[in-house]
């Protein structure tokens, strides 16, 4: 088994053969991948060394210390967090070799074609059709809430390949080429004024069967891997005290005593405590994961942060008084990166409304906690044994 000392020496070797100061950024990242130091828990030859995941921090610290370039993980979050684990779990050897390296270096950006206008919480009801045509599939349909679609080279896509069986069974998982002429990306403007997401229209998009991930009709199971990783990445950020949405409002409170009222003071303290407890709960979850203890708190983290972000940013707008009536800029833009705490209070207030919808609505997550954590009876299902084509819509 590879240990921390071995990783340190391999990292130093990489730095010696590819000095970051004189090596092209992508060349350095490629060499890092080839040395197995990209994600050390991945298998050898695929950017890893089969080492424990916790040892990644050793490599990252060594590289950070000398200011080596990173792969700008925030820009390629969907590739790293969702596409990669799915490709690793279900891809063929050929697929893994073709896609993982440029995915990790950031040469190729990925997006996710899952949600549809008619399939939100009930994602398995999706209607985008993929019809077999020889060695290819022909895809038609509409996807929505696709971040990075306008930058992406590839997409992970789930589509209906069999409408005659119940909805969970007739789905297949594909890798879609976003440069196909049948792919049309349109920005989707949000209540914040900007377009962080896109709508994607698929018209006779042709996907070779070699870009299928997993078996025909097995797409729902494959998608579970993707979605599980999404929830971990949304709720699992590590924060210092006052590190989240509470930070800016606490700062304003300290710097502008003229804005303070007794009512706001009580509400601020209450939210400060709740934010600190949410932070501790997240920290406890991380400690459990490190100790190899299964923890259920993860399912709850996203619920807590969604509510807190909304309440805290709402309080912040009130605290600002006359300034709370203003908004920094309604200009339609397509930001490459999304920072929930970026921009002004009005933006934070509006953007955080999405936190209880994206990546599983709070209502669905409460069902998940009730059923999987507390073991309460599942919702009555009327859709389980009905062919997809016969579902109410």
């Amino acid at each position: 088994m590879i240990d921390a000392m071995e990783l340190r020496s391999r990292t130093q070797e990489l730095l010696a053969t590819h000095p970051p100061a004189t090596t092209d950024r992508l060349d350095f990242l490629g060499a890092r991948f080839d040395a197995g130091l990209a994600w050390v828990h991945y298998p050898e030859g695929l950017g890893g060394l089969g080492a424990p995941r916790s040892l990644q921090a050793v490599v990252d610290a060594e590289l950070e210390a000398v200011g080596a370039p990173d792969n700008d993980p925030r820009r390629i979050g969907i590739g790293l967090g969702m596409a990669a684990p799915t490709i690793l779990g279900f891809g063929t050897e050929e697929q893994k070799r073709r896609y993982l390296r440029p995915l990790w270096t950031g040469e190729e950006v990925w997006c996710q074609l899952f949600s549809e206008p008619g399939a939100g919480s009930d994602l398995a009801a999706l209607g985008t059709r993929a019809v077999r045509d020889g060695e290819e599939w022909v895809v038609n349909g509409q996807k929505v809430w696709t971040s990075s679609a306008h930058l992406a080279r590839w997409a992970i896509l789930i589509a209906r390949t069999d409408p005659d069986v119940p909805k969970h069974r007739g789905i297949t998982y594909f890798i879609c080429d976003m440069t196909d002429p049948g792919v049309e990306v349109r920005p989707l403007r949000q209540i914040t004024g900007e377009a962080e997401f896109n709508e994607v229209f698929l018209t006779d998009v042709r996907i070779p069967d070699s870009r299928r991930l997993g078996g025909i009709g097995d797409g729902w199971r494959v998608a579970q891997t993707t979605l599980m990783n999404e929830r971990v990445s949304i709720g699992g950020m590590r924060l210092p005290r006052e590190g989240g949405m509470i930070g800016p409002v606490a700062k304003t409170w300290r710097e502008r005593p003229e804005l303070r009222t007794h009512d706001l003071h009580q509400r601020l303290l209450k939210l400060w405590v709740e934010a600190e407890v949410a932070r501790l709960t997240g920290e406890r979850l991380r400690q459990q994961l490190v100790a190899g203890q299964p923890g259920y708190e993860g399912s709850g983290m996203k619920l807590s942060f969604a509510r807190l972000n909304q309440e805290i940013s709402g309080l912040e707008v009130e605290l600002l008084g006359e300034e709370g009536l203003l908004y920094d800029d309604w200009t339609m833009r397509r930001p490459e990166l999304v920072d929930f705490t970026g921009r002004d209070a009005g933006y934070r207030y509006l953007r955080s409304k999405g936190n209880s919808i994206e990546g599983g609505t709070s209502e669905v997550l409460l069902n998940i906690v009730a059923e999987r954590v507390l073991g309460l009876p599942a919702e009555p299902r009327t859709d389980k044994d009905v062919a997809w084509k016969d579902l109410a819509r």
Partner: protein
Amino acid sequence: MTDLLYSEEEEALRAAVRDLLTDHCDAAGVIARSESDAPHDMELWKLLADGMGLAGLLVPEDRGGQGASHREAAVVLEELGRAVAPVPYLTSAVVATEALLACDDSAELLARLASGRTIGALAVALHLAPGAAFPAVRLEDGVLHGELTGIADASAADVLLVPADDGGLYAVERDAVTVVPQVSLDLTRPVARVRFEGAAGRRLGDAEPAARRALLSAAGLLASEQLGLADWSLTETVRYLKERKQFNRPVGGFQALKHRLAQLWLEVAGLRAAARGAADALATGEDVDVAVAVAQAYAAPVAVRAAEEALQLHGGIGMTWEHPVHLCLKRAKADSLAYGTAGAHRGALAELVDLQAP
């Protein structure tokens, strides 16, 4: 870095205490005892203190204790909270013990408390927060005069630790005073008036630092008791709602109730992190004031709501004297006042983290 988990040893301690409570502290017995002349279960106390050595967890080994820490005491309190056990653990093994640990001249009494054979009570009203002003009795001609009220578990105590108006903390034996039980909201941790009519006392040290240390530790560890109460309320309600059938289906299958229970679970998970944070801070001495204030500002509303939800979701049976949910509700509500309300602790935080009032 704060350790928010339970160690293997702590889990083993939990299992041992839970086993003992399962055998010796059933709800029906607690309910029956609560209206008797002896609300405290002294046999259970002997098993916990003598048998398991739990009264001396916070006392170093060279002073007659177990040399453990607040982390272990917190685990014990979680379990005692789950059972709403009528024993003076928090008041004697935590509060009185911490007060003695802050005094110079207390070695002999400390060892007696650590053994569990003597029960102590700090004569400061239960609702007072760490740092709050507290009443003292008059010291005249070397003896104590006056009356103190709201003293938790005074009726079980062998010795009272009493603040006097000279700034000292005095040890007063139980037979030197008159203890008058008050009819208490929480019958499992009853409060009493204590009258001093020329009571002899022995000066142990200064009252203010002793009370501050004792109440800070009590407030921090109370969060673990509240966690136990909340966890029992949630677990028991989930269990019942899986069994209880109305409209030809388990009541726990209705989404309105599932969401309420899931929400409660989230809050209990938060309370667990906050309570472990406070216990660990007390054990290490790092960031104690903030960790305790955060835990207490969060714990009481969660524990009370958990008990209130348990009562409501049990329906009619939850309103009966026979069902244990009222033990939990009364303890949770009394705990929401104990060692400072959530609001008092939020007020402390305003200073501690520099979020000043207008």
